[in-house]
């Protein structure tokens, strides 16, 4: 593997100073499941690797009445190992359970999945569906970016030189809400999404009407997509097949997938609609079960 230096700062300030001093030649390391492979293959060539797992802010996993704060370096297994997160932020836990195998889940973080910015990243549609905000620290201070605006292209995102993703913040889940993430793959596990869909819904107290919804798509464009129109169409609508089908059709209409070995454009468009319907139905069932 390429020669590099390694540092494991224990404070956010030290980490930021290291990133700034190495001006674009340093890379943060959380779980390393993408980074170490990319350095080995030469896709990335850092001079310094900054292990961020010893920084308290990046290890946060705090659930309160104000919502969820998820440190950028928290590994997947800690997320689905928390029963309250599984119940309240189910789409997030769903995605963490299917990222790689168990060995990957022991190390890989949702923050790293987001920063790697793959179009098929499993956790990103879940983050978008759950209205997460990325908290970024850098030489000019701290800023917040809604997750749907974070990725700008394959392996590209809004992070500027010297900036570090610190945490993801999720608003509190309202009553009668439910969420789900699911992907289509030809195997049962250990595969990259052909299409992935995350959705969250809020129902009225009778469970018969959508108050609001958020739908997000993965693997059907150069970045994960927030299906804004599809989400808006559900607000105020009865929970029935026609509302769900209309939203799924709107979601399909924004998909711009590619043809590749995992699926054709035609197939991916079809799966986008079918999967959106199924994910919405599961999110509804979970919202109703919250009562």
């Amino acid at each position, binding site marked *: 593997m390429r020669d*590099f230096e390694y540092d494991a700062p224990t404070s956010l300030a030290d980490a930021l100073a290291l990133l700034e001093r190495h001006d674009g030649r340093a890379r943060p390391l959380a779980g*390393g499941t993408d980074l170490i492979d990319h350095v080995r*293959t030469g896709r990335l060539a850092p001079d310094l690797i900054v292990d961020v797992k010893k920084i308290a802010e990046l290890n946060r996993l705090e659930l309160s009445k104000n919502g969820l704060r998820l440190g950028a370096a928290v590994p997947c297994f800690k997320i689905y190992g928390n029963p309250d997160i599984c119940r309240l932020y189910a789409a997030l836990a769903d995605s963490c359970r299917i990222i790689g195998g*168990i*060995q990957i889940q022991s190390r890989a973080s949702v923050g790293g999945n987001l920063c790697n910015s793959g179009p098929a990243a499993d956790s990103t549609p879940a983050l978008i569906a759950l209205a997460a905000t990325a908290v970024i620290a850098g030489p000019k201070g701290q800023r917040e970016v809604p997750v749907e605006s974070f990725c700008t292209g394959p392996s590209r995102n809004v992070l500027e030189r010297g900036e570090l993703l610190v945490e993801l913040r999720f608003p509190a889940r309202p009553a009668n809400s439910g969420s789900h993430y699911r992907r289509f793959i030809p195997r*049962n596990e250990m595969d990259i999404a052909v299409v992935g869909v995350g959705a969250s819904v809020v129902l009225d107290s009778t469970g018969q009407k959508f108050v609001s919804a958020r739908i997000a798509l993965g693997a059907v464009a150069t970045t994960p997509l927030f299906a804004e129109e599809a989400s808006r169409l559900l607000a105020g609508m009865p929970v029935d097949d026609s509302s769900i089908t209309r939203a799924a059709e709107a979601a399909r209409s924004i998909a711009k997938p590619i043809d590749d070995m995992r699926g054709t454009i035609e197939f991916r468009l079809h799966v986008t609609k079918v999967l959106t319907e199924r994910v919405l139905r599961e999110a509804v069932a979970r919202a109703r079960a919250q009562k």
Partner: protein
Amino acid sequence: MAKKRVVTTTINGRTTEFLCEPRQTLLEVLRDVLDLTGTKEGCSNGNCGACTLLMNGRPVDSCLVLALEADGAEIETIEGVAPADGLHPIQQAFLEQAALQCGICTPGFIMSAKALLAENASPSEEEIRFYLAGNLCRCTGYDKIVRAVQQAAEMRQEARF
């Protein structure tokens, strides 16, 4: 070249110090520096699970861990599994069920199976298959491995380990 560093870790219950470069993975150090060659190198990109070991009780692909990250950690490798007087029940079950042929994937499977049974004493077949999905075997077709883990779970239930 980046300077070598000293890492202090616990491997199979024994405090171990080693020198390594930042770019060396835990897998490389185990095999090339510490002569612990039971952990196998397969794909070296986190797909096959041949290099699985337990780090602070969690199964990880040691090809995707920098050796420096092991500083202060508890590491358990296949060399630490068998007691002095024989085999661990998971190993015994793998033998009895003929759950290996070439054997390259076996240490990784045994480490993952050990982590599974520590978490879930009586996993269903589906749970076993899902948990072991990060370990690839090109010989057995997996059925025998699943049976071996089921047998090991039964042995564990009978308080044999």
